[in-house]
């Protein structure tokens, strides 16, 4: 057991690091570009040199690299201050890409995948609906056949990047008379199509990372279908498995180190709070969880390193991480006492930003990508193999399933 690279890994790491250091864009190269453009410039540069989406086949813009090499490249890139395109591209590259890889025909793969890798085209994902939520397959946006096209009406929600995306992957209900999972079909759509309207959703943190997307008689050619009609749920599982692998534990800026630093700065009964044993006990318990997540990730990496794929046990990262971070942020605000109420990004980061921003942002993380409750279900059912809840909607035509409406 060690934390060291194997010989092959070390060689790859050196190669990656060398390339990254030599090619990390200079301020000259980036002059005049905004954040988005900087990210895309860097992505293009990586793609041109074969360092984009390196797990993908070379023929589709990748490098035929292993999962472990992908992780090593990410680690090395994270050590440098490179422009960040991840936030714009992770859905396309992390979810749409693998889905196209599995389900698209060769022509479409050649048409779309290299552009996904290079950032030339941006993709978004349109699965969730207002009536869906945790019950993802309960979606209602319908597609009705019309010649060689489908006509789409309905509403999607929680679509990040809808406004700057070129393409979207989506699941639609093509048959409400059969059981919930059976009546779905999977498509991709040009996000500039007539009839698509995008409205940002403001979150309680004040930012708008997601959108509502309304479809009014939007026309999608049948050639943009992935999988058979009625096979949409199966196709979407490909997407979702990759979503889960992407979300991960999410390192938070509110963590043991930042909370300990705060506890060194404020006092309790006139002494540094870090000397107060109630503070120490809480910090220690959180450290144990944080370390547990970190070393669980190391174990997953070791499995990757051997060629195994990470399993559903990765659900614990988000579950434990989000609820812990919420409690830590709340506790940090308590340590700040009355002034903890202040949230001002122009002021002292430790007093008026970090913990408040996290306090307001974290409820979203406990929900996005599967609520705490869904994560616990996944662990219970897929890891521990416990039986599912009785399904009230089993075998029932979708249109007959009770909705409370």
């Amino acid at each position: 057991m060690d934390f060291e690279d194997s010989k092959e890994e070390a060689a790859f790491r050196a190669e990656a690091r060398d390339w990254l250091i030599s090619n990390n864009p200079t301020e000259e190269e980036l002059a005049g570009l905004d954040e988005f453009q900087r990210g895309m410039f860097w992505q293009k540069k990586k793609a041109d040199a074969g360092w984009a989406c390196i797990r993908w086949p070379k023929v589709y813009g990748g490098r035929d690299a292993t999962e472990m090499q992908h992780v090593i490249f990410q680690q090395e890139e994270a050590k440098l201050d490179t422009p960040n395109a991840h936030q714009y591209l992770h859905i396309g590259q992390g979810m749409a890409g693998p889905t196209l890889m599995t389900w698209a025909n060769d022509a479409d793969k050649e048409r779309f995948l290299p552009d996904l890798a290079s950032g030339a085209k941006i993709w978004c994902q349109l699965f969730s609906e207002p009536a869906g939520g945790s019950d993802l397959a309960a979606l209602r946006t319908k597609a009705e056949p019309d010649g060689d096209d489908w006509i789409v009406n309905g509403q999607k929600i929680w679509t990040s990047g809808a406004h700057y995306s070129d393409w979207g992957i989506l699941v639609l209900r093509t048959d409400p008379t059969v059981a919930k999972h059976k009546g779905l079909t999977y498509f991709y759509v040009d996000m500039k199509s007539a009839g698509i309207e995008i409205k940002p959703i403001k979150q309680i943190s004040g930012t708008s990372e997601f959108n509502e997307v309304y479809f009014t008689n939007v026309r999608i050619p049948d050639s943009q279908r992935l999988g058979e009609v009625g096979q949409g749920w199966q196709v979407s599982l490909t997407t979702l498995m990759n979503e889960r692998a992407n979300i991960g534990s999410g390192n938070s800026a509110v963590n043991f180190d930042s909370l300990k630093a705060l506890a060194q700065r404020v006092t309790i009964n006139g002494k540094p709070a870090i000397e107060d044993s109630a503070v120490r006990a809480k910090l220690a318990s959180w450290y144990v969880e944080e370390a547990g997540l970190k070393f669980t990730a190391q174990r997953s990496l070791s499995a990757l390193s051997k060629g195994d794929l990470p399993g559903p046990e990765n659900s614990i990262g988000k579950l434990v991480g989000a609820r812990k971070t919420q409690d830590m942020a709340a506790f940090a605000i308590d340590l700040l006492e009355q002034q903890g109420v202040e949230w001002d990004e122009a002021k002292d980061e430790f007093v008026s930003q970090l913990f408040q921003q996290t306090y307001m942002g974290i409820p979203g993380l406990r929900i996005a990508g599967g609520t705490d409750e869904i994560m616990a279900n996944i662990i219970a059912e897929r890891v521990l193999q416990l039986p599912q809840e009785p399904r009230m909607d089993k075998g029932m035509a979708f249109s007959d399933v009770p909705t409370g409406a």
Partner: protein
Amino acid sequence: MNFEFNEEQQLVRDQARGFLNTNCQTSVVRRVLEGNELYAQDLWKQIAELGWTATTIPEEYGGIGLSYFELALIAEELGRACAPLPFASSVYLATEAILSVGSEAQKLEWLPKLAAGEVIGTLAYSEGPGEARPEKINTTVSNGSLSGVKRAVPGGDIASVICVLGQSLQGNGTSMYLVSTESDRVTTNTIKTIDPSLNYADISFENAHCELLGEDGNGWEILQQVLDRAAVLYAWEQLGGAESSLEMARNYSLERYAFGRPIGSFQAIKHKLAEMFVKNTLARSNAYYGAWALSTNAKELPLAAATARIGSSQAYYYASKENIQTHGGMGYTWEFDCQFFYRRSKALAIAVGSERSWQDKLINASDIAAA
């Protein structure tokens, strides 16, 4: 044995609830949260007319001389409505401080105006992040003029009279002072916070005229007394918010369907809401104890205050965060009302000392209560 509010008191609560149901719907909270008002002035006038600001002020000072039971019930309803008002800072803090230790002249000057809601008060002690400590107070007084900076004062940009903790005139520890903000020697700056439906301000005093409030050198003790009393009332306001959060979560869990049945039929949700109910019920019972101790000035007050305060802080945090969770994605949107209670739960939880600080006080108080 009658550990319950009497009928007149329950009538006060029912009227308060009815009034706020009509006049302080969440649209009012949203208006203040999103807008440029420091507080809901129209609502403030109405509740002042109803006498809420005068509740425990004796009749000789223009109040209506009701007990703390009535005030506790009003606090609960304001909490339930998440009212965007400087009620807590003016009534639980400033009014209480003047009532407790003000001179006859000070009472005659300020209480009638506070009772009528014409004047809004607050109490300022914090000077920076973390706990306040008597030896660290940098607010000083010389020649009847007070100088210093107070941070994150609740209702700080609304109040026109402020109880200010400063160093004693005679190097005798700390003292409490009364300062009117009408002077240009007092500068207030509203700050950005996690709960914009309440006003918080930094306040700078530069040789502002001040009067001693209570005895010189007694500032810290006065502060602790006021905080003990206010903690009970905050606990009631927090309880109201926790109850609203549970009610919202319950209603949504009945309306929202997943997998062909209301989400309220899943044990994950049922047990979450049961836990909210448990926490709220215990918090309510402890708040009763607090109200009893406050209204009878019992020697158990410090213990009862800590108990009520901790119970309500825990209950409100849990209920407000799990209310969002029960709502799922929609609960995290700006458009939904869950956010008001989540913000408010934290703002109130640190208003008169964090849960952590009250845990320490509780153990101290348990020694005294046992003695």
